[in-house]
């Protein structure tokens, strides 16, 4: 049994390597939950070492208190209100000034800190040396140099952690002009609950924290603000920030050594940016990158898909006989679930490439390039990242809206995401383009993705017109330097997400397919999956609705009904109802034409978010919006499918 236990927050700027450090400290002892009241992911890890229990809490990356996004606010609230026993402040050594500004805020909160000078190798490469010894003697607390990605310096950090009991609070803090110091002193003494720390007193003074509930405090503060601004003839918020930066610069002067700057690496990022973010080239380059992404998803993935297909075919032929069990394994299990699983290679590659883009630094440029365009549509450039994640899976994409800074952006982005074509819709396209558009596979699929984006934008724009009037929030964001992405990390992240897909296929989709198989086999005595079976009757009843869209087979109706649960089920249903991969192609060739295949794909893209996405939308932005999202998508999906078919028909395409 451990004698002592400490709660240690791991804090830092975004892109400071905070999460790698957290992972290195906690290993696999990870518990992922939610912060109370909100859906932002909370990662905690418990480690017992040297008789001490450490509970590490990974708090969201933040720059300070100006944040309006949910996750940054949580980070600051946790530090101020929960008061962890110590904070590991992860500092990106190569971006010293900005990272140290956050450090300054944290030490003013009166917390004990364990500063970590991370990415010290990158800093060295750029000719920057941080002298941890000098830092330690100025602040009276040990500074640890690390390279979290490779684990360098972690043992040293553990040594500091094991002596947590002796850790002092930092002894060196920024000093402000006398009137400010006096005001801080007065606030701290008079309102120990609301302004108990230097940080809180200063934030209340400079307007960073607005206290509404205490009339007396408000009075005192406005009095103090007036007096100080008159005496010093300066705006308080500006003055305080300036003093903090002076503090940061003075520390940098003592402890940071800059040798001749090797411009090479820096210049490379800027040189790439000159093309990638160019106002004329940026957009086309981005579209090309997207097209390349899908091209690779196919060309690299398809040989593997063929192998798996052959494997399932062989498996299916091994199950002979006409018993119910054999029929279930053949038509239900192998055909249904197998039809979904064959696309695992494509999905893995898609997730892998998205992770590579994210890790390389390109994804944040995409947001930047998209800003002007998004701005014109009433969305924030940053909204582009959740939307892009939607290509992988809508669920994490909708969750990612919490990184946006205001309510309006969060709502509009979450409403737009379901039209981003997720990986579950990909099998449907793959099935159809493989049959009808063999020569233009990637172009057709790419155009469907593009259609999704266009619809998403129109929906967001219209909703903004109707529900929101205030201006678009401005874009200020950090763009990390480009670096060669770690293929191992990308593979791991793609692996986790693909495993989730496989698990879903094995449970949820399996269950649905089972239900469809049972309904297709009943009532007893009818031929399997015939129009006389229960499912055939349900499908036949609904099918006429889809006549104007060009696909009125009852199987298609069933596929769409059950596709509501998860869009992978659409393909699974066809697999079950048409009897396996081999029969699937010829059956679909009979029931669809190239044109109705197109309208069916459009329908699948748009018609409804899956159950899980609806649930997440509801959790993130409320029931009203979730309901609206379903209504819009059903209407729009059906309308567009009919439009595609009818216009195509008029043009004599099918």
């Amino acid at each position, binding site marked *: 049994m451990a004698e002592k236990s400490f709660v240690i927050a791991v804090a830092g700027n975004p892109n400071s390597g905070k999460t790698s450090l957290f992972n290195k400290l906690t290993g696999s002892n990870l518990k992922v939950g939610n912060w109370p009241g909100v859906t932002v992911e909370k990662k905690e890890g418990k480690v017992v070492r040297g008789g001490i229990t450490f509970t590490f809490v990974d708090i969201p990356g933040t*720059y*300070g*208190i*100006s*944040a*309006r996004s949910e996750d940054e606010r949580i980070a600051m609230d946790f530090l101020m209100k929960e008061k962890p026993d110590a904070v590991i402040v992860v500092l990106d050594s*190569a*971006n010293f*000034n*900005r990272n140290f*500004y*956050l450090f300054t805020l944290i030490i003013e909160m009166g917390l004990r800190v364990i500063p970590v000078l991370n990415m010290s190798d990158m800093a060295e490469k*750029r000719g*920057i040396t941080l002298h941890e010894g000098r830092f330690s003697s100025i602040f009276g607390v040990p500074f640890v140099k690390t390279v979290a990605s490779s684990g360098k310096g972690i043992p040293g950090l553990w040594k500091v952690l094991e002596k947590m009991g002796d850790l002092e609070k930092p002894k060196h803090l920024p000093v402000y002009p006398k009137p400010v110091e006096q005001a801080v002193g007065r606030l701290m003494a008079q309102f120990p609950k609301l302004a108990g720390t230097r940080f809180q007193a200063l934030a209340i003074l400079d*307007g*960073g924290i607005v206290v509404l509930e205490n009339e007396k405090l408000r009075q005192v503060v406005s009095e103090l603000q007036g007096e100080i601004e008159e005496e010093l003839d300066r705006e308080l*918020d*500006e003055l305080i*920030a*300036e003093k903090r*930066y002076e503090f940061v610069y003075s520390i940098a002067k003592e402890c940071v050594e800059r040798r001749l*700057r090797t411009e090479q690496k*820096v210049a490379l*990022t*800027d040189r790439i*940016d*000159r093309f990638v*973010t*160019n*106002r004329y080239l940026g957009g086309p380059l981005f579209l090309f990158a997207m097209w390349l992404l899908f091209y690779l998803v196919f060309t690299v993935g398809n040989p593997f898909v063929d192998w798996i297909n052959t494997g399932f075919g062989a498996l299916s032929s091994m199950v002979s006989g006409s018993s119910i069990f054999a029929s279930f394994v053949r038509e239900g299990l192998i055909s249904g679930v197998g039809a979904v699983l064959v696309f695992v290679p494509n999905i893995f590659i898609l997730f892998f490439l998205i992770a590579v883009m994210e890790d390389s630094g390109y994804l*944040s440029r995409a947001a*930047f*390039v998209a*800003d*002007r365009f998004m*701005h014109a549509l009433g969305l924030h*450039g940053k909204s582009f990242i959740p939307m892009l994640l939607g290509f992988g899976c809508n669920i994490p994409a909708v969750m990612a809206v919490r990184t946006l800074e205001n309510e309006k952006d969060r709502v509009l982005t979450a409403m737009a995401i379901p039209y981003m074509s997720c990986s579950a819709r990909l099998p449907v396209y793959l099935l159809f383009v493989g049959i009808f558009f063999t020569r233009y596979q990637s172009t057709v699929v790419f155009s469907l993705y593009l259609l999704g984006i266009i619809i998403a934008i129109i929906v967001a724009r219209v909703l903004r017109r109707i529900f929101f009037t205030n201006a*678009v929030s*401005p*874009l*200020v*964001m*950090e*763009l*990390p*330097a480009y670096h060669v992405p770690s293929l191992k990390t990308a593979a791991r992240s793609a692996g986790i997400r693909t495993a989730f897909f496989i698990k879903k296929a094995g449970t949820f989709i399996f269950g649905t397919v089972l239900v469809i198989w049972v309904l297709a086999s009943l009532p007893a005595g009818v031929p399997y999956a015939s129009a006389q079976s229960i499912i055939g009757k349900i499908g036949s009843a609904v099918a006429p609705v889809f006549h104007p869209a060009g696909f009125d087979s009852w199987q298609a109706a069933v596929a769409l009904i059950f596709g509501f649960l998860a869009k992978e089920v659409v393909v699974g249903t066809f697999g079950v109802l048409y009897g396996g991969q081999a029969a699937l192609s010829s059956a679909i060739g009979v029931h669809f034409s190239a044109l109705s295949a197109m309208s069916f794909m459009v329908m699948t893209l748009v018609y409804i978010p899956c159950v899980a996405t609806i649930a997440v939308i509801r959790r993130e932005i409320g029931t009203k919006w979730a309901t609206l999202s379903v209504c819009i998508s059903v209407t729009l999906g059906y309308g567009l499918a009919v439009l595609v078919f009818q216009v195509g028909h008029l043009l004599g395409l099918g």
Partner: protein
Amino acid sequence: MVPLAFVESGSEVEILDFRCGGKCSCRLRELGIVKGCRYLVSTGAKNGPFILSDGETRIGIGAGIAMKVLVREVACG
């Protein structure tokens, strides 16, 4: 003194003032955009977003804010 939005890419600028609200200037400061600091405008064109870079740091600024950040051109490069 000109808004950042009017500066050509490739120029070096010194940040002089912000003409946006308290929250927004606070955000800029937290990201390291501080009065007196010098930055290279590595990307930028009228109406478009801007990138200010200082060796290791790169901050993207949307067209809206670029109008509100006042700068002085230091040198052309």
